[in-house]
Structure formats: structure tokens, C-alpha cells
């Protein structure tokens, strides 16, 4: 069910799930992203981190999904964050103001 456009690689470490997202996160693959993330969002005893190193494109569709993950994790009191954000994507995070909500709390 993974299209070439966006791929996910999930790594389960000790108390931590890292999802590497590669490709283009746009409207076409938004529902794919949601369905991959939904079960992971529910694991409240683990820290959830999205590694964005190989993410080439995001727009308000993807940022909207990140906002819903932030809110779902916050409601469960479970840590969530992003890492290795490419500069073009960081710029959009800063413009929209989502950046402070994407910093996983340390040692959580």
C-alpha cells in the first residue's frame, strides 16, 4: 500500500519509535500518511519521532497532519517530535509556527 511517492521505515528502539519518512508528502498521499501514523500515535508509553531527513516536499496538508499528531500525542501525554529536518522544510515549519510543537521533550 506504499506508493513510491512517500515511503515509511519504522524502527523500534528501547522506548522509542522512529519513523523515517522519505519522498513527497502532499495531498495525494495524505491518507496513506494518516493510516500509517494512526496506530503509532496510540502507543503512549513510547516516544514517537519522525525522521524527516529524506522528506523532499511538504505543504499545509502535511503540516496539518503533523498538527493532528501533536494534538493526539499531547492528549495522551506522550512525547512526539521530529528530527533531521531539511532546511527548506524547516523554513515552512518556522513560517507556520509549528516548530515549537515539534520538539520532543528530552528524556521522555
Amino acid at each position, binding site marked *: 500500500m506504499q506508493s513510491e*511517492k512517500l515511503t515509511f521505515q519504522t524502527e523500534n528502539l528501547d522506548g522509542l519509535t522512529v519513523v523515517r519518512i522519505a519522498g*513527497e508528502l*502532499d*495531498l*495525494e498521499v*495524505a491518507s496513506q500518511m494518516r493510516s500509517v501514523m494512526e496506530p503509532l500515535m496510540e502507543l503512549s508509553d513510547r516516544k514517537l519521532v519522525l525522521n524527516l531527513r529524506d522528506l523532499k*516536499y511538504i*505543504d*499545509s*496538508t502535511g*503540516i*496539518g*497532519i503533523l*498538527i*493532528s499528531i*501533536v*494534538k493526539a500525542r*499531547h492528549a495522551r501525554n506522550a512525547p512526539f517530535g521530529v528530527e533531521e529536518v531539511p532546511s*527548506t522544510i524547516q523554513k*515552512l515549519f518556522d*513560517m*507556520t*509556527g*509549528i516548530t515549537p*510543537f515539534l520538539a520532543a521533550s528530552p528524556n521522555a
Partner: protein
Amino acid sequence: MRNDGTVTLTVPAKAEFVDIIRLTLYGIAAKMKFSFEEIEDMKVAVSEACNNAVLHAYDHSQPGQIEVSFTIMNEDRLQIAVSDSGVSFEQVTDRTTSTLHGKSIDEIQSGGLGLYLMQALMDEVEIRSNQGTSVILTKRRLAQETV
């Protein structure tokens, strides 16, 4: 302002066609020698306009078309008009394009960022509304090429 050529593309108003618009934009903007960063900015802004046409313009039972025309002006200015013939974009001026800045985690919500991003990433954004919506985005190339 001199028009140095227009390229027009019509695609179905469906999510899977938006990347074709991005690819065309890339081709035209790279040929005009826009910088990598400027092209990335335009890709997001144009996609936002197309996403809106896909999501908000048409009834899901009757998807329509999106017409995108790229006009090269004075060699260094690209104007991209994204038009749909769906429901009109009412009360354009009332739309608050609000970001997440200064909000708490309980106040933030997904949605409502597209217009803000278009305005932040382009030099000019004009919205025309009659029998559908046209969003006219303009960006001028800044980095002067040293040839």
C-alpha cells in the same frame, strides 16, 4: 509589462494531478533561472492553490478541472494563475490567514494555512472570485545570474 510567453495546463481537479503542476512549474522556473529556494517557495504556493481547488471548489460527486497558466513577464517575473470553475470563494477578505504563532497546544488546529503560505512565499497574491476562483501568484527572480 511585457508578456514573454504563456504555458497553460488543464488537469482534473484531483489530488493525483497536483504533482504534474509542480513538475511543470519546476521546468519553467528552472529555465527562467530562479534559484533553488525560490523554486521551492513557488512549488508550495502553487500546490496550495491547486489543493484548494481540489478540496474546496467542487462537489465530490462532480469533480471539475483546474486550469493553471504560467506567464513569463519581463524575463524575470513568473505569474501563475490557478483557476477553477467551482463554488465561488466567498468573503475572501474575511478569511483570517492565521498561523500557529503565539498559540498554545490546546488552541492549535489543522487547516487554514494554505492562503497564509501563498502570501508568505510569493511576492503577490490576488484572489478573483466569479463563477469559480482564480488565484494569481507572482514571484520575481531576485538572484541575478552572473553569466
